[in-house]
């Protein structure tokens, strides 16, 4: 494969599940390409198959059709190729924050001491200073998400999947976490695929927003976001931002099957 191969190429991937009422098509064939270092978001109503795509990319689910290519190599059904952060933080309560953060490295067989030495400065630089040796139960929701995200980053894959990481946080914390995530993304230069319900969050963070529809899940439009970085919070009031937001909301509402779940989200 040439060097210009995209970081991630989802090639005609489809998924259907067998149910008592016959096959249920969860994903129509989807093709998606993400260039190295980009921040790309998927937005869509509940049940549009965002999590299914993520599970397929992470190798946790075998698609019924199509392939997943990472840097041009077939990675369909192989685990451990991407960093995957699920909706829940899933921190292990019997491990300290530090030992939670090194879980990925530990599983990859890196000696504990070495892993801790690598993780410690990062925890301290990215807002978990003073929390390194505490247990997750004594952390706030935002702090727990930070720890979970650092665990994902420390897993050392170029591509990371974030499945609604800030969905359960309050509005104030969410804004802080978005800034924090931007800082991390800038520092680490990872390629990020981000799922969210929040249109504004998707536009603010991304280079590209893919809007999905449901039954079966598919991508109905790809909208590039060309706003210059670093983006100020006030960018959300600019005409370009608002135009994209309007377009997204229209797309999400225009699909009849999507409207009911969008009302819930709104």
């Amino acid at each position, binding site marked *: 494969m040439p060097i210009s191969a995209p970081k991630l190429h989802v090639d005609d991937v489809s998924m259907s599940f067998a149910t008592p009422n016959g096959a249920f098509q969860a994903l129509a064939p989807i093709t998606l390409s993400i260039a190295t270092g980009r921040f790309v978001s998927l937005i869509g109503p509940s049940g549009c198959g965002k999590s299914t795509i993520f599970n397929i990319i992470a190798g946790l689910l075998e698609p019924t059709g199509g392939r997943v290519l990472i840097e041009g190599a077939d990675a369909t059904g192989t685990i451990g190729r991407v960093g995957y952060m699920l909706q*829940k933080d899933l921190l*292990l309560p019997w491990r300290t924050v530090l030992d939670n953060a090194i879980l990925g490295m530990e*599983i990859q067989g890196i000696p504990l001491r070495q892993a801790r030495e690598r993780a410690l400065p990062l925890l301290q630089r990215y807002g978990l200073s003073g929390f390194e040796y505490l247990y997750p139960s004594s952390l706030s929701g935002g702090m727990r998400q930070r720890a979970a995200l650092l665990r994902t980053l420390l897993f050392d894959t170029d591509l990371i999947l974030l499945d609604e990481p800030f969905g359960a946080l309050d509005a104030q914390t969410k804004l802080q976490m978005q800034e924090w995530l931007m800082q991390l993304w800038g520092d680490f230069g990872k390629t990020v695929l981000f799922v969210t319900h929040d249109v504004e969050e998707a536009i603010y963070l991304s280079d590209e927003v893919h809007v999905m529809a449901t039954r079966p899940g598919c991508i109905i439009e790809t909208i590039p976001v060309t706003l210059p970085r670093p983006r100020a919070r006030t960018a959300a009031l600019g005409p370009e931002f608002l135009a994209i937001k309007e377009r997204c909301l229209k797309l999400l509402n225009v699909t009849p099957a999507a409207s009911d779940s969008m009302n819930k989200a709104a």
Partner: protein
Amino acid sequence: MAVQDTIGTVAEVERAPPAAPAGAGSIRAARRLPVQKDWPIWALIATQIGILIGAIAFWEIGARAGWIDAFFWSQPSAIFGTLTIFFTTGDAWTDIGFTFRSTIFGFLLGTTAGSLFGLSFWWSRNYAAIVQPYIICFESIPKLALAPLVILVFGIGLSSKVAIATALTLVVSTLTTYAGVKALDPDGERLFYSLGATRMQVFRKLVVPFCLPWVISVLRVNIGLALTGAIVGEFIASQHGLGRAILYAGQTYDIALVWVAVLVLSTLAVIMYATVSWLESVLRKGVRQ
């Protein structure tokens, strides 16, 4: 304490009458919140000891006065005499050691094997589905009813008592640990697999630590069950042990010795229970439950 109590009551009575209604038109009586006053700890302990001494004194006096039949119920002075003999010239330490060993071996064996058995169900859903009905059957059998069979197979020595104690604790540990396995969050497993973990890594780093609180939670129950198993085994056929001492004393109408053995047995049970409770709290802290 009696004096203190009276003072307390008087003080309450003085405070108790509702204050005169402030407003002229107020009909509702103002009532104070009933407050229960806690006695100091020494007063509580002194009362507890007092009740015990009172009961023993009543028993002794009753037996001497003839209100209580000392042949059936014995009497504290005789029990104390037998206790001294039991520990000086009798088999006290042999019996205690025997019962203690059967209990501890049965407890360790049953708890360990049961926990491992419960954890093993994580490895295969098919295997779990096949084995589960057998475990439930085994659980519903009154295992003590099998004790005569166990004695026949294992003989009248220590091993039969250990076997009964093991049988009683094994199922409890198995089922409780399996409940822990079933409570495992599938997303936790998905996290591990997304990091490229092997099944063994998931087992060692996720399943085992996650299920430890379940394993620990049955320790106290199991020590009691193991002791029950050991005693029942001794009742049926044995040459040593506190259970045998009780049975033997009863059959020879040595009621004082029955009481002595029961007393020693209770003390042993309390000590083991307290030790295991302590162990449980230490382990709980260790696993951050």
